[in-house]
């Protein structure tokens, strides 16, 4: 396979570059060409999107080359450059549901092959199990003989039919993925069970929070009142029904209590009805959808941050809340108990009574003044989760992965059939063979050797810094 040949060539080249250093040092100095793949990226906003962007930025800072592949969003098609030469490919693929693309197992191969060959990718890093493009890319990357990493951002159950099907799909795509990254230990347990994985190839690397964006500012608080801030999408999974039970309960007991709720979603109705019924218009403010930059300004107005999620793999919101110096009260679900030390968070059972009791306790503490200052909370939280640390740990995963051998086709078929059950395994072994034949056809039509190589924007030979001066000049001329 041409790709593998190229990869070998490249590692030879890098060996020549750093000839004289020991093998071990080489391993740690090696720069990777990483391709991040997910259906979810800017202009869509959310946890996965910002994770990919910030991780990529930190990897570029460390000298790696990173490109991002996602599907086109409206008129946003083709190649775009973001800060520091982060190149984003918006592939023209059909969106099916919730920004996830259609998957046919084959149709994305020509485009993905173009990107992977032109960019001389060595590691394909796919994100989010909701993304069909991520699954596709893992499958094609293996056909092309590349090493793969997958990051799982969410938790799944095992009981209903949809999770049975997605879990089977995950088993198939992860069966020859080299390494999997999960955002919390609970998420790791979940993924290992869902995809029947060896836990040794699953690393836990938590999400991070840009703590410099979330600094406390107690002057924004109203000291004659106690404000509870909730920032989340207003959907069932975030426990908004519980919030609808908590608001009247606590507002009746504490006349100086305010709620500040940021976010939008179908469950907004519940909150509006509660507000209407109990006449709490002056005390419960619904801010609607917030832009990321406004989140901090809302957070600093509160004393207590409340999270009522019913399921959560990591929960960045509580870290952001704590980083702004708020007392955090949260349901004890999923990975949440792992995220903050016990003295910074009050964990409650996911029901109205327990959450009210937890909030009462914190309100009493707040009144008596027995809480640490926002600045001291911020100081403790700010270094817990940093993107630099995430990038460092992810880099080690890449270092480990590139040394691994990619299974040749017959071994891959064997693995699929032994790992994914006789029926699904055989079907996807067949799909793998077809994919391979399709790749051969594409290679015959346009051989890898005659494909143009893309100009590196980031990475060791990145042109961004050299050219940025010129670019600035031309852009100023234009304007």
């Amino acid at each position: 396979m041409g790709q593998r040949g190229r990869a070998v060539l490249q590692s030879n080249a890098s060996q020549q570059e750093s000839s004289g250093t020991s093998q071990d040092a080489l391993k740690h100095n090696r720069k990777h060409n990483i391709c991040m793949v997910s259906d979810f990226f800017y202009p869509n906003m959310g946890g996965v999107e910002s994770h990919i962007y910030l991780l990529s930025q930190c990897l570029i800072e460390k000298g790696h080359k990173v490109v991002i592949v996602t599907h086109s969003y409206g008129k946003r098609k083709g190649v775009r450059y973001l800060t520091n030469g982060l190149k984003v490919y918006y592939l023209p693929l059909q969106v099916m549901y919730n920004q996830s693309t259609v998957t046919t197992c084959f149709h994305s191969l020509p485009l993905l092959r173009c990107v992977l060959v032109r960019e001389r990718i060595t590691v394909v890093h796919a994100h989010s199990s909701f993304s069909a493009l991520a699954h596709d890319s893992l499958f094609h990357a293996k056909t092309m003989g590349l090493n793969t990493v997958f990051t799982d951002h969410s938790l799944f159950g095992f009981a209903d039919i949809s999770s049975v099907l997605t879990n089977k799909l995950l088993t198939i795509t992860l069966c020859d993925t080299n390494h999997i990254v999960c955002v919390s230990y609970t998420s790791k347990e979940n993924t290992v069970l869902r995809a029947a994985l060896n836990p040794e190839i699953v690393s836990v690397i938590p999400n991070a929070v840009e703590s410099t964006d979330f600094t406390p500012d107690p002057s924004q608080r109203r000291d004659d009142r106690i404000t509870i801030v909730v920032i989340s999408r207003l959907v069932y999974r975030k426990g908004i029904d519980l919030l609808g039970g908590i608001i009247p309960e606590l507002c009746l007991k504490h006349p100086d209590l305010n709620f500040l709720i940021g976010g939008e979603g179908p469950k907004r109705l519940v909150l509006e009805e509660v507000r209407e019924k109990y006449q709490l218009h002056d005390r419960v403010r619904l801010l609607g959808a917030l832009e990321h930059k406004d989140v901090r300004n809302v957070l600093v107005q509160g004393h207590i941050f409340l999270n009522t999620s019913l399921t959560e793999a990591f929960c960045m919101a509580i870290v952001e809340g704590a980083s702004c110096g708020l007392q955090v009260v949260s349901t004890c679900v999923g990975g949440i108990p792992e995220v903050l030390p016990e003295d910074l968070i009050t964990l409650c059972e996911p029901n109205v009574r327990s959450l009210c009791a937890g909030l009462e306790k914190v309100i009493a503490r707040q009144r008596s003044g027995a809480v640490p200052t926002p600045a001291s909370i911020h100081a403790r939280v700010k270094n817990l989760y940093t993107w630099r640390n995430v990038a460092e740990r992810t880099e080690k995963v890449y270092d480990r992965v590139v040394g691994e051998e990619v299974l040749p086709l017959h071994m891959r078929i064997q693995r699929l059939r032994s790992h994914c059950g006789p029926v699904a395994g055989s079907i996807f072994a067949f799909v793998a063979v077809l994919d391979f034949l399709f790749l051969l056809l594409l290679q015959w039509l346009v051989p890898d050797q005659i494909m143009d190589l893309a100009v590196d924007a980031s990475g060791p030979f990145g042109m961004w810094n050299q050219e940025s001066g010129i670019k600035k000049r031309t852009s100023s001329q234009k304007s």
Partner: protein
Amino acid sequence: MGPDSAPDPPVPWRKVLWERQPFPDNYVDGRFLEELRRNEGLRQYHYWAVVKEAGSVGQQLSCVAIFITVWLYMEQGLLSPEVLLLTSLVCAMLGYGLHQVLASTVDSGDEPRTRLADLQSAAIFLSFTYGFSPVLKTLTESVSTDTVYAMSAVMLLAHLIFFPYTQPSPPGSLSLNAALFASVCLASRLPGALHTFAMLSCALLVFALWPCLLQRLREKAPSQFTGVCVGMCIGGIGGLGSQSLVGAVLLALALGNVTFFCPLLLITLQRQKDNIQGPWDEAEIHEDLSHFIQ
């Protein structure tokens, strides 16, 4: 703390993310998956208990068979509509009496329907059916007989599939409507208007009133319920046997399958059940939160 750094075990591993621990990122502790719970809240079934419950399914199957038998007799002229009406009346009176007796043994809290109301509904139904039976008789005249039979078969199957076996009283609207539709189809192929009327009354008795009585019987006298089910099954097989031996054999096989083989299958497959729960499951809201809004 990359995946490759050597483990250093003097401090115990903790399942927390906020603390930098001297373990590699892919470290697997002995406590991995310790919160995994299997088959929580699993119900253990006993074979004969399941067979008893499955009896109500077999019984319903036999009801359909009995109804078809009655229709076959009517169609061949072996049973006159007068006799059927008279038998139906007697059965209805007996059943109603039994229903009342069973109701009175334990007085229910809410006000019971008066006899007058029952009589009224019966009178309305009978007069309307009697009045409309000439219309119903000619309703499917333009439809071919094969179509009518196929439709009846499908509808009776739908009746069996959608029948609310756990709570048959009142009968589910979908299954009852399917059954009545099938009986109108079948009744319209009988020779006269009185035949149609008799057939529809019989259908009402079998598909609407009998399940109610049976449910009452099941609640109040569970020991008799089993006997009644067995009786119905034997009646169904015997009745069908007098018309078609193949039909009787097939019915017997179906009944045996439903009442004896399926419970066995359930119990054997129950052992294969592997349901996993853990901290990753979505929390469920058990409280009723609607009173906060309404």
